[in-house]
């Protein structure tokens, strides 16, 4: 099981069930997870396709989509930020 966090505009598009997800065994890398998530919810998938976003694994930015997922990882999907 992995924990998924959808921030900003991704939040309202993500089904609640995705917060604690059990992707199939074939989902081995961060890139696989991204593709699998997009398939679970079409509106979220469309937003992910249309928006540059960062992936944060266990509170660290991950640029390498071939990074291997581990059980109990926390993965956050972060759209462009706007604070202040």
């Amino acid at each position: 099981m992995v924990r998924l966090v959808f921030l900003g505009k991704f939040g309202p598009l993500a089904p609640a069930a995705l917060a604690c997800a059990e992707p199939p065994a074939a989902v081995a890398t961060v890139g696989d997870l991204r593709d699998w998530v997009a398939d679970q919810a079409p509106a979220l998938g469309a937003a992910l396709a249309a928006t540059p976003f960062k992936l944060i694994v266990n509170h660290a930015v991950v640029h390498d989509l071939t990074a291997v997922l581990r059980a109990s990882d926390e993965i956050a999907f972060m759209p462009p930020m706007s604070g202040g």
Partner: protein
Amino acid sequence: MEVRIASTTFDPQAETAAFAAGRSEMGALASFVGLCRDRHDGQVVEELFLDHYPGFTQDEIGRICNDIAGRFGCPDILVIHRVGRIMPGEAIVLVAALSQHRNGAFEAVRMLMDYLKTDAPLWKRETGPDGVRWIEPRAEDLARRAGAEGAIV
């Protein structure tokens, strides 16, 4: 050095006063308050909502704060950032910095605000008569970041 994520209103001037109290070796206190406006790009703003990533948001802002404190000789910096629902007139963010001379405090506050506007893990949503929209950094903010000497990206 304090970074606080606040889910309820705060009084920026009272917080600034408490932050600066009793620091008579410091000659300069610069501060900035970002306020929720009742209009944005000509549209009425009924409320804002700020999303954050609990834990991560505070840690990231704290990391940048420490970096900026060292670069500008500001031993003390205070950041308070609201999250959740925010109404017009309420303070969204306070950044305050103490230093011996004014230059360090000015630069620290300014660079932190530039960071918070474009690169801190915060997401702003406006509600107006036409519904909700998520705000992305203004072109001007991104240009400031691109042009900033030694900017944190």
